[in-house]
């Protein structure tokens, strides 16, 4: 049970992200059936119309099963945490509001599955979809608000409906774009989907306005609280999504004279999916941090952010245990610790309080960031050199990641072998140490696979390890959150990590686009410069990273 509680915080966010995505795909697929496939099928030749309807129903089936699985896991996790921490009986835990909301969602998903299998008319699934959204919103944060509950419930409903219309419909749209039909039919599907996407954007924006008024409340809360900073990052990725959407809109409405637009459209939709998944990751995190409006005290000021953003000479030497306590810094941290001690704090089960950090921890962490940054800089510059196609040696850049893997292996757990006294196998009993060692192994696997790709050619399946790993990294960076009680230092750390996550997502999309387009395409020629530049940007953030 202790191990479970240790993992609860992480699992709850990941499962909530999965739940948000699955629900959106189900709702988006239902909307795809009701507002796109059904009306359009009648105007298409019989075979094509049947194909379009089957596509929508297939997407509903996928969305339905995914929703059932994700909601079951997510609500089951919460119920187990209640049982484990309060000693409740299973039935008592099952009576919690979030479990009832989850049961409502699962009942609707099951009904949608039955209707989609039966090939029913589009309107019954649509009614079921609306009921599902109502059940989901009943378990959202708006339900727990002490003030303005109804307006916030409405904002949540509109926002999630908008996300479903646009992002949730993407899988069905992508499947439809892959069907073997004439370009004119694909264009008709795309044009109709554009309408759904525009309506979705309107819903998302309307919901965001509500969220800003109810949950953020002031411009200062945008940069001064974790909720605000994450919302801003989500908005940046939303802008990337809008750019991709605009590109698709132009492709469909301006450049669709022949069939050449179709492959490019598919690639952009795939990138929309990658960014969309990461946006759902942030959304899941946002639902689990306190709204900025609820944290009027202890916010990070603009001056503090500016002070932290001033570059400082990177650390080239690592502190040892004998370096403990750089006097002035330690005095400053002690003062902060005394100040924080008087505030009531909050944490999730399995998580501990945030004890005061000392100068050793900060110096250790900064050194780790800086050295990692130099490795990533070397990778980025080598990849840029490789992009020129003039430096043959540069194609071996993935091997530089081996240095990063060795660095992570050696320094991630200072108390364990090889730095500390705990033996290698003994240290693996600590899940965190095990996680770090696995991470080092993953970096090795990633480096070797990408190196082999560079040696053999880019279009093998192994080539996609890189963009997928970058997207996964970006997702996890964006999906993790800190600073329940607005601990300033944790938020300042978070402010530096959010751009890292966003840059990783952009790099992932660029590499994906390059791979999918092939070397001759215009977008590939641009993309092959974009992702190395993202790596250089990431390296700069790491090299000048500061924790004090």
């Amino acid at each position, binding site marked *: 049970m202790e191990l479970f509680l240790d993992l609860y915080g992480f699992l709850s966010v990941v499962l909530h992200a999965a739940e948000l995505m699955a629900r959106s795909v189900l709702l988006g697929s239902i909307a795809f059936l009701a507002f796109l496939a059904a009306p359009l099928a009648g105007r298409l030749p019989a075979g094509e119309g049947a194909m379009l309807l089957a596509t929508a129903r297939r997407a509903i089936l996928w969305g339905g099963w995914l929703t059932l699985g994700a909601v079951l896991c997510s609500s089951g996790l919460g119920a187990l945490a209640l049982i484990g*921490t309060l000693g409740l009986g299973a039935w008592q835990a099952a009576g919690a509001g979030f479990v009832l909301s989850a049961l409502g969602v699962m009942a609707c998903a099951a009904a949608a599955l039955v209707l989609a299998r039966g090939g029913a008319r589009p309107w019954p699934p649509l009614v079921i979809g609306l009921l599902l959204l109502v059940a989901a919103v009943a378990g959202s944060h708006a339900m727990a608000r002490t003030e303005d509950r109804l307006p916030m419930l409405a904002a949540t409903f509109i926002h999630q409906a908008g996300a479903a219309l646009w992002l949730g419909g993407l899988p069905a749209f992508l499947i439809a774009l892959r069907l073997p039909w004439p370009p004119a039919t694909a264009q008709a599907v795309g044009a109709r989907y554009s309408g759904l996407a525009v309506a979705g954007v309107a819903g998302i924006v309307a919901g965001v306005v509500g969220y800003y008024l109810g949950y953020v409340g002031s411009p200062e809360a945008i940069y001064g609280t974790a909720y605000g900073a994450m919302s801003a990052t989500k908005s940046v990725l939303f802008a990337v999504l809008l750019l991709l959407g605009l590109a698709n809109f132009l492709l469909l409405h301006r450049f669709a004279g022949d069939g050449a637009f179709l492959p490019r459209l598919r690639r952009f939709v795939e990138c929309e999916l990658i960014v969309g998944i990461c946006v759902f990751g942030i959304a899941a995190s946002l639902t689990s941090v306190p709204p900025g409006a609820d944290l009027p005290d202890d916010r990070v000021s603009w001056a503090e952010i500016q002070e932290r953003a001033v570059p400082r000479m990177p650390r080239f030497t690592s502190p040892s245990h004998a370096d403990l306590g750089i006097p002035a810094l330690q005095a400053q941290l002690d003062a902060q610790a005394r100040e924080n001690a008087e505030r009531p704090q909050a944490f999730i089960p399995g998580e501990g309080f945030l004890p005061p950090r000392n100068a050793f921890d900060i110096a250790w962490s900064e050194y780790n960031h800086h050295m990692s940054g130099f490795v990533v800089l070397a990778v980025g510059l080598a990849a840029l050199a490789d992009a020129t196609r003039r430096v043959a040696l540069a194609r071996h850049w993935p091997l530089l990641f081996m240095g990063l893997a060795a660095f992570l292996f050696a320094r991630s757990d200072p108390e364990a072998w090889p730095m500390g006294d705990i033996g290698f196998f003994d240290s693996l009993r600590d899940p965190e140490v095990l996680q770090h060692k696995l991470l080092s192994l993953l970096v090795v696997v990633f480096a070797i696979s990408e190196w082999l790709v560079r040696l053999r050619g880019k279009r093998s399946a192994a080539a996609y390890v890189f963009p997928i790993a970058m997207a996964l990294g970006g997702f996890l960076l964006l999906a993790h959150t800190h600073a329940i009680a607005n601990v300033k230092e944790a938020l300042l750390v978070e402010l530096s990590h959010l751009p890292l996550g966003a840059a990783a997502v952009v790099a992932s999309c660029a590499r994906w686009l390059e791979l999918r387009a092939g070397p001759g395409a215009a977008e590939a020629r641009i993309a092959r410069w974009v992702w190395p530049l993202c790596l250089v940007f990431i390296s700069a953030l790491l090299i000048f990273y500061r924790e004090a």
Partner: protein
Amino acid sequence: MSDFVRAMPRRCLLAAPMILLAPAAQAHAIIRHAEPAAGARVSPGPVRLRLVFNSRLDHGRSALFVAPVRLGGGGTADEVRVELAADCPAAELMGTTDALAPGNWRIRWQVLALDGHITRGDIPFTVAA
């Protein structure tokens, strides 16, 4: 499991390759007002507890405990559950402890907000004559 301080640099280090990162805490329910306040001194005897949150709570699945503060913290064996008042407002937990002897104490609270998020926290206070 090592404490958060030990974990922090390691967690931050994981950002470098951006493949895996353990999250820190997330929670929606936070305290707006507490009686006794963190660090407060109260008289010996039963202590009335009142915690005001920013979220509506599921009172049937929330709890208050009181326990002596021990050096080094940790452990729940000596936590005593405080019965919640029947008339708690939607976003509050209220209760009264048994008589507390002079010393350092902590309130351990755990709430389930209506949005399904579980949050815990401690409020240290001192009982002194």
